[in-house]
């Protein structure tokens, strides 16, 4: 019996030795790859693929209807960088992004502090605060176009009745007012995000810190500066980061309010990409503008993280 068993076991062992078996670590590695592959494929398909295609288009002339392409090398980039339009748009985008960001953060933090106090109607105010953030861009733009309308807008009407102005102001058509007006609307739409983010953090700051500070005779300002702000730092870092991206890429607010005008005074990069790509049917140059925008944004991110990382570590 024993002999038989041994005899039977030999060929099995021999078969096993003749076919190289994967080591456990390798098999686990392969399983890991197999499990991650679907996500990687989806990531490539829906994020990296279009991104690379967009970058690639910047180097071509593209006929929009037939989609026939012709390689131009750096032609589109040279044209864009030399005709001044891109740099003008970039500057306007930075003004729009940074201007909006400052207002959103200042107003957002101020209102969050207010809503963190025990005031009458606090719950209702907290609920209403989210409202501008929920309103679709088209509704917000239409409402603000009415409010700031040159001939029947309430802003002009009130200011004229109060004797502040004697002629209606064209908020979206005056070259020097168009961008600030668009920033104002953008701020109105976005500040609730900062309020919500900060309010959540404010509610978790231990009361003992304020009690101890007060016991030491710290003023309200000192409490804000030395307790509240450091506690808000981590929330603000991520909020500013997200709002920067969203402001930089905000297309709908500008498109619906001014369409980039008057005379390109609100021609942000997303508007320029849209106008060149879909107004002038020049997909190649539009992609080149987008590529350059991506580079600029990446530089900003690198700078941001370089500055924000020590601050973040400090606050944690």
């Amino acid at each position, binding site marked *: 019996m024993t002999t038989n068993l041994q005899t039977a076991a030999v060929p099995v062992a021999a078969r096993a030795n003749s076919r190289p078996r994967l080591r*456990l670590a390798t*098999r*686990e590695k*392969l*399983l890991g790859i*197999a499990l991650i592959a679907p996500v990687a494929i989806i990531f490539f398909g829906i994020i990296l693929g279009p991104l690379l295609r967009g970058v690639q288009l910047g180097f071509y002339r593209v006929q*929009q*209807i*037939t*989609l026939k392409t012709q390689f131009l090398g750096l032609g589109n980039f040279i044209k864009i960088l030399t005709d001044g339009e891109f740099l003008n748009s970039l500057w306007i985008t930075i003004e729009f992004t940074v201007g909006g960001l400052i207002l959103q953060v200042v107003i957002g933090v101020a209102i969050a502090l207010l809503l963190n106090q025990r005031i009458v109607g606090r719950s209702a105010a907290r609920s209403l605060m989210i409202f501008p953030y929920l309103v679709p861009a088209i509704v917000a733009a239409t409402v603000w176009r009415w409010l700031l*309308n*040159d*001939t*029947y807008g309430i802003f002009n009407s009130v200011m*004229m009745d109060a004797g502040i102005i004697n*002629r*209606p*102001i*064209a*908020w*979206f*058509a*005056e*070259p020097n007012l168009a961008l600030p007006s668009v920033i104002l609307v953008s701020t109105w739409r976005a500040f609730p995000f900062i309020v919500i983010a900060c309010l959540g953090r404010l509610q978790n700051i231990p009361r003992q810190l304020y009690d101890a500070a007060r016991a030491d005779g710290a003023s309200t300002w000192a409490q804000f500066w030395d307790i509240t702000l450091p506690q808000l730092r981590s929330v603000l870092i991520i909020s500013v980061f997200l709002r920067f991206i969203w402001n930089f890429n905000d297309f709908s607010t500008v498109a619906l309010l*001014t*369409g*980039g*005008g*008057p*005379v*390109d005074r609100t021609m942000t990069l997303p508007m320029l990409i849209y*106008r060149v790509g*879909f*107004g*002038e*049917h*020049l997909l190649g140059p539009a992609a080149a503008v987008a590529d350059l925008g991506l580079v600029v944004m990446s530089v900003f991110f690198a700078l941001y993280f370089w500055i924000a990382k020590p601050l973040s570590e400090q606050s944690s």
Partner: protein
Amino acid sequence: MSSQNSLIKKAASGISRRSALKLTAAGLAAPAILGSWRKAYADDGTLRLLSEDTADVELAWYKQVNDAFKAKHPDVNVQLTTIDSSLMMEKLTNSIAANDPPDMVPGTLQERIATFAKLGVLRPVDDIIDKIGRDDFVKGSLENFQFEGRQLAVPLSNQFRVLWYRNDLAKAKNVKAPTNWDELLNWAKTFTGDNKYGIALAGGVNYSTCFMVLQFFRQGGGGILDEDGKVMIDSAANKTALEYMAELYQYSPPGSANYGEADLLKNLQTGTAAAIYYPGRVLQRMTTNAPELMPNINATIPPYSAKRFTSNGPRGTVIFADARSPDAAAEWALESSFGRESHIDWLLTAPGMFLPVRKSVAADPRFTGSPLLKERADVIAVLEEASHDEGNLYKETPNHKPNFRSGDVSASPILPTMLQKHWINKESSASALSWAQKQMEDLLAS
């Protein structure tokens, strides 16, 4: 730990065989499934209409004719998509590029159709015209949609941009409707003051502004292109016209540089502006929004300097060469757009805006008996008179060579930006015109 490892081992060995086979099978099956779905979609009798008619009365008309069509052709599913007229070029360009054009556009402007005609994406429509009756179309209307010898759209209607003014305000100031540029300027001065304006001009980046620029250029003896198709924006006549427009702009509301058609109409309706340039749709809008103002609204031939010129808008019905349901599209056109009764119903959705281009319809008592058309026969007479000096970006005058890029010109920001440069950037007229000349040359050469 060991049970975990055995689980991993089991999973790893499972994936390498069965799952790999299943994945391969699924991978092979997916294109076949998707392909058959696409084929089924292509053959399921869906008729896709893309329309720029968005007013409630127009949508009600579509509902009515589509219900009737569905009742007669239960196997055809009519799918209506509506978009703002200003986005039509963009929407069509993108859908054609994506190889997914609609089956048909029931009505759009000649200058847009011309651009798509040149690209060879439209289906000839002679069969439809023959069924309607070639002789029924008024002179010149068929020719409006013949591109390089091919009939690529069925003429649907025509429209004209005239000067609309507030009769009540004119009477109060004892002023007559202007007939030339000098009178128009005086008119504008007379009514401006106390936050009221003599005229509201469109200066935003939109096609209304393009039409207005063309109109002033031609009225001043200039134009966008000369008869041979050469760009002539920087001509002396255009310089005079641009400077005249800047003078008029002083008497237009402060936000004019951002105005589109809706703003113009609101200004006329509220009495903020005493006059506007607008197509015949004013009658429909006033009937709907402010019927009490109807007696106070009047129209006149656009005042001119060197030549009379009215910006026109022949509209046509097009079917795309790559339509998935071309037969259903042709059938829909014959029954819904051009069936006598429904065609008249459509024209009457905006009386004065959609002027007939078929003799039988123009003479039909159902059309001529429209209460609004009878009530405002004076306005209709003005619109008809305006048709004697018509032109547009496709053909500025009958002697012009066709401009197949007219759709792109009307969708491009060149003409509005030129205007804004002079109006609000205070650039000299010569500089703004020279900039636009170069931009337009580049656009037409691209």
